[in-house]
C-alpha cells in the first residue's frame, strides 16, 4: 500500500471507526486512542491483508478486539457488564455538537447506557453501510446471533428511552 492509499483509507473510514469506538468506550479520549491505535496496527500489518476489499471489516474487527483487550485490563474503559446510565451521561456530554437535537442526544444517552454487547451491535447496525453479515464478522458471532442480539438490544434501548422519558416528565 502506498501512502496516498493509506491516506485515502484513513479518510474513508476514520469517522465511522471513531463513531464505533465512541459507542464502545463512551468517552472521546479513549475513542480517539482506539481509532489511532487501529490505524497504527494497520500501518504495521496491513500488507498481510490479501483481499483489499476486506480493509473495512479488518479495521472494525481490529478496533473491536483492541477495545476488548483494553476493557479487560484498563480501569478507564468501564462497564463490560450490566447497564450504566451515568457513564452514558458523562460520555455524551463530552462531545461538542451544536447541531445535535435533543432527541438525538437522548438517543445517544440511552445507547451509551446499554451493556457492551448491545452497544456494539447497535452502533454497527446504525452506522452507514454495515450490513448484518459484516456485523457478524466484526463481532465474531454467527449471523443468527447478530439478528437476535439486535432484537434484544433494541428492546433494551426502547425500555431505556421509556424510563428516561418518564424521568424527564417527572
Amino acid at each position, binding site marked *: *500500500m*502506498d*501512502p496516498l492509499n*493509506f*491516506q485515502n483509507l*484513513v*479518510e474513508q473510514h*476514520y*469517522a465511522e471507526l*471513531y*463513531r464505533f469506538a*465512541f*459507542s464502545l468506550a463512551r468517552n*472521546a*479520549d479513549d*475513542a*480517539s*486512542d482506539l*481509532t*489511532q*491505535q487501529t*490505524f*497504527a496496527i494497520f*500501518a*504495521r*500489518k*496491513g*500488507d*498481510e491483508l490479501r483481499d483489499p476489499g476486506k480493509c473495512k471489516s479488518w479495521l472494525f474487527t481490529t478496533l473491536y478486539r483492541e477495545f476488548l483487550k*483494553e476493557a479487560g*485490563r*484498563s*480501569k*478507564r474503559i468501564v462497564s463490560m457488564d450490566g447497564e450504566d446510565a451515568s457513564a452514558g451521561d458523562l460520555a455524551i456530554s463530552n*462531545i461538542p*455538537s451544536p*447541531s*445535535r437535537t435533543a*432527541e*438525538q*442526544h437522548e*438517543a*445517544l444517552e440511552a*445507547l451509551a447506557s446499554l451493556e457492551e454487547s448491545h452497544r456494539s451491535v*447497535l*452502533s454497527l447496525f*446504525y*452506522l*452507514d453501510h454495515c*450490513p*448484518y453479515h459484516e456485523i457478524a464478522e466484526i463481532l465474531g458471532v454467527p449471523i443468527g446471533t*447478530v*439478528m*437476535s442480539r*439486535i*432484537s434484544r438490544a*433494541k428492546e433494551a*434501548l*426502547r425500555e431505556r*428511552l421509556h424510563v428516561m422519558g418518564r424521568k424527564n416528565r417527572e
Partner: protein
Amino acid sequence: MDREEARIILSAYRPGRDDAADPAFAPALALLDQDGELADWFANQHALDIILQSAVQSIEPPADLKASILASAKMVEPPAAQRQWQYPVWLAAAAVVALLAGLSFLILPHNGPKTSLASIDAAIPRLTKAHEHPFATDDGDVEKIRHWLAGNGGDKGFVVPRGLKGIQGMGCEVTAVNGAKISILCFELHNGGAAHLYVMDRSQLQNPPPDLKPEFQERDGIAMASWSDGRHSYILAMPGSGSDVRALL
C-alpha cells in the same frame, strides 16, 4: 414463521438499504401484509431506527484526529510496500500532515496552564539519570507498560518510535514537571544502557516540539530528541550523543 420470529428478523431490517433485496427478510416482510399488529410494531421500529441512525451519525470525530492518525503512521514500521515511497510524495504528505496538525493545534481551544518545553527539557537529565521506576516488567513487554500507564493516570495512545521496536521495555512511571503530566517509558538498550521515552499531552505545553521532524540537543551528557505527532509530544533521551538517539527514531 410466527410473529416473534418475524420480529427478530425484521429487527435487523433497514428500509432504504440493500436489505430489501436480501431473501433472508422476504418471508418476514410478506407477513407484514397479513398481520396488522406486526405492521404497527414494524412502523414504530422504523421510527426508532431513524432517530438512532441520525444520532450515531451526529458523533463527530475530533478535528485533529485524522492528522494524528496520519502522523502516527509515519512513526511506526511501515509495511514492506510502504518502504518504497517516492520521496517527493512522502515529503508532500508529511508537509500536509504537519500543516494540518499545526493548524488544528492553533485553532483548537486548550484548557489549563501551559508548561514551557524548556522547563521540561531542563528536567530530563535528572529524570533520565534517576532511572528508578515504580513499575518494572520481567519480560520486556511494552504493552504491559502501556497498560500500567493507562491504569495509573498516564498516557496510553502514544506511538513508540520504530527504532525502539524490538528493544525490551524495562519499566515506567508517571511524573509531573511544573504541572505537566509526563509518562516515562524505560527501554533496555543492547549495550546495557537505558533510553527513556517521555510522553506528554501536547496541549499541556506552551511551545510543543514540531510534528514529524525531531529536534536534537544535548544536556549534561544526555542526548535528547523531541517531536510531536498531533495529540502527543515526545522526548527520547539517553546518555550519549545526538547520533545515538537519532538511531533509535
